[in-house]
């Protein structure tokens, strides 16, 4: 079964080569079949890790630390699963229209990106993570560039950001290697003892990853890139790509020991996340274009995820009390729930926005009048995913936010609670602003633009994902049990 780990990376890479060589029609068919197979493979991995625990493999049979290890614990399996499910649905959506893909080379670039995402989640090695991040970054930039001449400037800016973030990470890796003489994350964690080097390395790597995750105020590149990309690309970027760099932050903070200065850095990161939650939501409210609004929403939602650091770091410090450990555990599973909820809901929201823009010929809010009667299923998808993002019960995001609130109270950091509440209200507000434009009936019938036909799968795929984001709230116990597998928090008091 441990052969499955490398297969989840090397199969999509091989499929990318094949789709790059085939003519467009055949490439589309192969791409879709491989996407569905990868979705199934990621479900298999999650079931396997859930039932029999952590999976490990050493590539080429070279023992660690000489060779490179792959490792799938519960968190890895959950991220691979999210990527597999969202990736499969977006692939179905993408097969519905050439315009949604942006170009014939969509399939090879997306499959390489998929391989890169899985490689990040399965890496047990600091340098291998860097190479995988390069695949993800370059793949994401390439997909944005498929948006045509108008998207090129945003793509180039995204490229600079992605490379800068990777270099900051690599500097940190250099410091860790100098200190520990190993690139294996687990071994490095055992050998490190904190101090100036550790705080510097952790800060550098966190800044680099925060840049790629678009943590406020390092987010300015995200809205033009995510909204300028083709319809099938935006959901991949917002739901999956920003999660990969956040995942690396989690791995680093939980895998390498904290030092004296760590709590200060964590608090700063948490404050920036909180400011981003409120600020980006307010900016989203003022947008005149639907896709830009959804893109700003991503900046806001990413802010929640970073609250994990200030809530969990006290529990990770050596003499942790029971309360701190409880807070760390609650924050861990709460943020995991939010990551999955945002992945499902945001991909559904971006896909529905893309379908609306495709049918109306524009994503300007004023052009979407009457959409609620003319495209009710799409409007409902948008509304449902907005409810999921805002975190109303019984959605999965509600479960996540509830646990974060409890974590904040357990850690004695009550000041994060209003941020969670206000952020939810603002999410409602901008979802409502988008819906209002769809409810508005124009004064005269001739103001209605003529709808272009869209493929049925471009309506159904996002709807299913949005329903899934609601329904998973009722089955969150199994999902959250998965992230406990192999977690460092298991050994806390």
């Amino acid at each position, binding site marked *: 079964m441990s052969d499955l780990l*490398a297969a989840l990376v090397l199969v999509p890479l091989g499929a990318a080569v094949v789709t790059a060589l085939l003519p467009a029609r055949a490439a589309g068919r192969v791409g879709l079949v491989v996407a569905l197979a990868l979705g199934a493979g990621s479900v298999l991995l999650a079931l396997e890790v859930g039932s029999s625990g952590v999976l490990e493999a050493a590539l080429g049979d070279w023992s660690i630390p000489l*060779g490179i290890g792959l490792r799938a614990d519960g968190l890895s399996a959950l991220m691979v699963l999210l990527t597999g499910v969202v990736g499969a649905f977006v692939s179905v959506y993408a097969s519905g229209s050439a315009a949604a893909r942006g170009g014939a080379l969509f399939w090879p670039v997306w499959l390489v990106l998929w391989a890169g995402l899985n490689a990040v989640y399965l890496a047990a090695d600091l340098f*291998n993570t860097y190479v995988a991040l390069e695949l993800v970054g370059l793949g994401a930039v390439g997909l944005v560039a498929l948006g045509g001449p108008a998207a090129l400037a945003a793509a180039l800016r995204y490229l600079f950001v992605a490379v800068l973030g990777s270099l900051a990470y690599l500097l940190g890796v250099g410091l860790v290697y100098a200190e520990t003489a190993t690139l294996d994350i687990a071994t490095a964690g055992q050998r490190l003892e904190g101090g100036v080097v550790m705080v510097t390395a952790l800060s550098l790597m966190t800044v680099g990853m925060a840049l790629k995750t678009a943590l406020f105020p390092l987010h300015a590149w995200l809205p033009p890139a995510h909204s300028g990309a083709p319809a099938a690309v935006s959901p991949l970027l917002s739901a999956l790509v920003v999660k990969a760099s956040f995942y690396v932050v989690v791995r680093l903070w939980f895998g390498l020991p904290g030092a004296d200065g760590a709590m200060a850095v964590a608090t700063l990161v948490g404050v920036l996340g909180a400011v981003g939650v409120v600020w980006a939501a307010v900016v989203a409210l003022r947008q005149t274009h639907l896709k830009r609004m959804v893109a700003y929403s991503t900046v806001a939602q990413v802010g929640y995820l970073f609250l994990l650091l200030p809530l969990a770091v006290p529990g990770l410090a050596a003499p942790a009390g029971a309360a701190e450990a409880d807070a760390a555990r609650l924050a861990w599973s709460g943020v995991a729930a939010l990551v999955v909820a945002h992945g499902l809901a945001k991909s559904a929201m971006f896909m529905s926005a893309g379908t609306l823009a495709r049918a109306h010929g524009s994503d300007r809010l004023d052009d979407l009048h009457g959409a609620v009667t003319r495209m009710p299923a799409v409007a409902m998808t948008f509304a449902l995913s907005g409810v999921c993002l805002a975190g109303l019960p019984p959605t999965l995001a509600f479960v996540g936010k509830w646990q974060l609130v409890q974590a904040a109270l357990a850690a004695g950091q009550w000041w994060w609670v209003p941020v969670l509440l206000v952020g939810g209200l603002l999410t409602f507000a901008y979802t409502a602003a988008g819906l209002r434009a769809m409810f508005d009936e124009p004064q005269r019938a001739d103001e209605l633009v003529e709808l272009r036909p869209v493929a049925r799968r471009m309506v159904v795929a996002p709807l299913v994902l949005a329903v899934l984001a609601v329904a998973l709230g009722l089955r969150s116990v199994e999902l959250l049990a998965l992230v406990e597998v192999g977690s460092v928090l298991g050994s806390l008091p």
Partner: protein
Amino acid sequence: MTVGLVLDLVLVTAVLVSAGLALFVPGRVASVMMFLVFGLVLAVVWARLGAPDVALAEAAIAAGVTGALLLDAVTERPRRGPDRRVGPRWLMPLLGAVAGAGLVVLLGAAALQAGPVEPGTGLGPTVLDRTDDSGVSHPVTAVLLAFRAYDTLLEVAVLTLAVVVVLSLHRDGRLETVPAPGAASPVPDALVRLAVPVIVLGAGWLLVAGSSRPGGAFQAGALLAGALILLRLGGIRLAVPTGRWLRPAVLVGLAAFLTLGYVTVALGQGWLVLAEPWQGTVILLLEAVLTVSIGACLAVLFVAGRRPAAGTGRGEEP
């Protein structure tokens, strides 16, 4: 003061001065020239530090190929209008200076404290111990194609992906519409005739030598790319594939590497597990395919950076 110390001081000064000049010299061409100089000095620094493999890669790829791409970019394209400026004139330089100084202090403090790892505890001795098991006798090649072959595979994927992305900016993902220099070639015929065989010979040497001494697919591929570009500039259009053979040439390296992985797993050995007695031969063959593919990738990147003939492509700037 020994000769070595003087040399080190000169090198360190030269690196800093050329880096500073590359950033601040007026004029983009001069700036790129200084970047080239910077790359070459850095290559000497690597050689001086006892890392000839890194020195070769730095000279061939970081200075050579990157320099050629940059030079091509700044000479062919007109300068765009002034950048949008945020805030007052002094704000950005000040922020940059503060951030830079902060980074230098932080990194300096960390570098002084970090390691150095006690002799004998690093990965180096382990690599030297196990090199003989890998099928090649040069430790750097053993790391790149045996111990950490998975990293190298993903890096080949990164390069291939970069080329595919650049191709996606051209119509139909092909380069036939990019004009090649015709009769008015900028490169003298005699130079092409003389240089290309020498470069190809050098590339072959680097490739074969890589199993026992410094060299390898990346350095050889960079040299090969140089030869292909020279040929194209010399008027031989077919030197760099632009039509039907374009994608196979670009993808063959990644495809071969992946096939190796699929075969090893199909034989029940596990991903990328190479067994005696074939492993040395397999690695050399793989490196040969990679050299061709890397050479094609880099040459295609150079060609694809040029504008397609007017009105034929998507390559126009926004």
